[in-house]
């Protein structure tokens, strides 16, 4: 339950703020109240509106009519006329300049370099929605017929057709029914309790919670009463095998009785149905799926470990953490890069966790204390940062992937904004007026459906070649020119968090909410092909690896 704000105390602080008599202790108290209390913020907003409204009301020349006013109001006009006058002046000035330029170069005039456009949406989005009806629980050697790049294990599935060329896919509907689809086969998802299978072989486990689950075929509709059954569908016939419980068959050309445990039926197009005994071994069982998954994970781990040897031998590799072999209470994260010594990570907080595949080690960042600290001396004309990360929530303005301490010239912050853009923020030269910072953003791609799934993120900064590049899952997302021709520096830095250095007592919270299970830094710009390879070697999908070898 929310505590009602203590209005007398709050309004005392508000009033002191408006009269500029607030002291630092009071301000800190105000900040703390506003930080944790939405009601306090609502009151604050209305209070400040009121403050403006009153100033506006009496600061206007219109209201000077009352002669009883002790102090005349002529000075106060300036409060409200400042910016509109300035803008009007600007308009006149800039228009004439623009006109002049247009005449001179006889082409469209470009606006002068200006402050970065805003890219953090300060307003609350409408409540997020989804049309998903099922989840792809696992995919074993799955090759999808159409662009199935989004069909990775754990992905939410929306209504539509899923065409499996080969391999096995396990789809769990939100109703609780699970389907094991064998390739080649197609399944069209309609709702969380209904699907259509034009062709293919599948088995369904329908627990009591999902009773009434239906699968249509061109020849018959199978409605389940809380059972397990198999379905084999071709153009000219459909076979239904009941392993457990009972199913109803409807919509067939001929009337059919319910089918019970151990029974099977062949329904040819337009012909008479023939009954026979159900064959469990004709369909993949959940046990077989589990076994194949285990084998697949082993193969995956072996492949990844084999690729690590060459990876660690790269002389430009500054740091590589694989988060393996961690024991509870470990504080040191071993740097595996052959070429650099003493650059181990120091673990502060962070719970041990599971990574991309079962058994893979990872660290979880969830509280604002969690971080991995490093110190990397030197300046770099080029850097490549790579992370396997599972972002669970974007509940901060900035969620850190990797941030250099404070934000002095040459420092950089690799982060995700609250609207789901990956950003490399680089601190540029400072002068007394303003600091020149540059933000290199991807489009907002980290949508709610991507949260909770592992992805491979890379950023490349190359002053010499004049390019900043963002990658996701091995593919180039964004390419931008750097604003400053100066090297980056790292020094004290943190994976999954940030600290402001020593200058301030209170500072913004920027911790990552999610997991990291591999991280590396190179002192050069990796090629597109190398980044694609990193992804393939670390991907959970073996099939992706096989396809790329063709």
């Amino acid at each position, binding site marked *: 339950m929310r505590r009602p704000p203590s209005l007398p105390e709050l309004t005392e602080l508000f009033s*002191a703020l408006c009269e500029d008599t607030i002291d630092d202790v009071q301000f800190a108290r105000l900040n703390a109240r506003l930080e944790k209390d939405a009601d306090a913020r609502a009151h604050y907003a*209305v209070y400040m509106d*009121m403050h403006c409204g009153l100033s506006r009301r009496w600061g206007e020349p219109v209201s000077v009519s009352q002669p009883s006013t002790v*102090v005349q109001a002529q000075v106060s006009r300036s409060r409200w006329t400042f910016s509109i006058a300035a803008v009007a002046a600007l308009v006149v000035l800039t228009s004439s300049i*623009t006109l002049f330029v247009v005449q001179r170069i006889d082409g469209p005039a470009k606006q002068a370099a*200006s402050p*970065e456009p*805003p890219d953090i949406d*300060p307003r609350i989005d409408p409540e997020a929605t989804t049309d998903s009806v099922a989840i792809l629980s696992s995919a074993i050697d799955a090759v999808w017929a159409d662009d199935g790049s989004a069909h990775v294990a754990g992905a939410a599935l929306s209504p539509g057709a899923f065409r499996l060329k080969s391999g096995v896919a396990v789809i769990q509907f939100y109703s609780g029914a699970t389907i094991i689809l064998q390739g080649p086969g197609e399944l069209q998802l309609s709702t969380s309790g209904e699907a259509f299978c034009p062709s293919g072989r599948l088995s369904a486990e329908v627990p009591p919670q999902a009773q009434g689950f239906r699968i249509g075929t061109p020849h018959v509709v199978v409605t389940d009463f809380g059972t397990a059954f198999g379905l084999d569908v071709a153009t000219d016939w459909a076979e239904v095998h009941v392993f457990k419980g009972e199913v109803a068959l409807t919509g067939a050309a001929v009337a059919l009785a319910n089918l019970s445990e151990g029974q099977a039926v062949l329904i040819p197009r337009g012909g008479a149905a023939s009954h026979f005994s159900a064959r469990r071994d004709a369909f993949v069982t959940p046990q077989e799926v589990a076994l194949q998954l285990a084998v697949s994970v082993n193969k995956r781990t072996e492949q990844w470990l084999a690729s690590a040897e060459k990876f660690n031998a790269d002389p430009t590799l500054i740091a590589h953490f694989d988060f393996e072999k961690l024991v509870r209470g470990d504080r040191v994260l071993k740097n595996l890069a052959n070429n650099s010594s003493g650059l181990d990570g120091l673990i502060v907080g962070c719970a041990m966790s599971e990574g991309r595949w079962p058994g893979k080690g990872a660290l979880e960042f969830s509280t604002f204390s969690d971080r991995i600290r490093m110190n990397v001396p030197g300046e770099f004309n080029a850097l490549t940062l790579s992370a396997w990360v599972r972002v669970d929530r974007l509940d901060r303005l900035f969620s850190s992937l990797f941030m250099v301490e404070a934000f002095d010239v040459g420092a950089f912050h690799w982060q995700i904004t609250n609207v789901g853009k990956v950003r490399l923020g680089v601190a540029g030269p400072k002068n007394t007026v303003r*600091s020149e910072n540059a933000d290199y953003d991807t489009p907002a791609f980290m949508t709610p459906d991507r949260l909770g799934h592992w992805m491979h993120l890379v950023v490349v900064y190359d002053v010499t070649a004049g390019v900043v590049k963002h990658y996701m899952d091995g593919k180039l997302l964004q390419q931008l020119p750097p604003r400053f021709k100066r090297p980056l520096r790292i020094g004290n830095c943190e994976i999954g968090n940030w600290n402001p250095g020593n200058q301030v007592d209170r500072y913004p919270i920027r911790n990552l909410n999610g997991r990291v299970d591999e991280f590396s830094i190179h002192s050069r710009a990796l090629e597109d092909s190398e980044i694609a390879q990193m992804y393939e070697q670390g991907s959970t999908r073996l099939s992706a690896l096989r396809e790329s070898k063709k």
Partner: protein
Amino acid sequence: MNEDDRSKQFVLQFARHENELFRYVLTLLPSWNDAQDVMQDTATALWQHIGDYDANRPFFTWASQFAYHQVQNFRSRQRTHRRLFSETVLEALACERTTHSDVIEGQRVALESCLAKLREQDRVLLQQRYATDSDVGALARATGQTPNALYKSLQRIRRALLECVMHKMAEA
């Protein structure tokens, strides 16, 4: 739209939304002078980006993004963090900021009717405070009160106003 029309449109829109924008900025940066500086920067930035403005979208929504960015710029320029809200507060305030013109208008109407309910001497005191740029000390001297008493009075009156406005808003 040609350059001239665009300029006129812009000045018109800016004039219409200046108050709203200033309130927005002041809420995030609660110092009148600082907020004025940021308004100036925002006006400049808006003008430089006027080519990006889509007349079909609400002007305030567009402009407030620039204002937010300028507030951030201003904050990053500050050497001390004195009287700057934490990032969390800033973000929350910006997020929760109502952009609904009906609500804003309702608030204005509520303020007017609440002002009418004030005692005459309280209203006059408020007017003196807001109709002048001079500080509370000068006002205290002019009215023969101690500054402290004046602060307390202003605090009390504004609190009564806030309670009244919140009450009216809840009713609406």
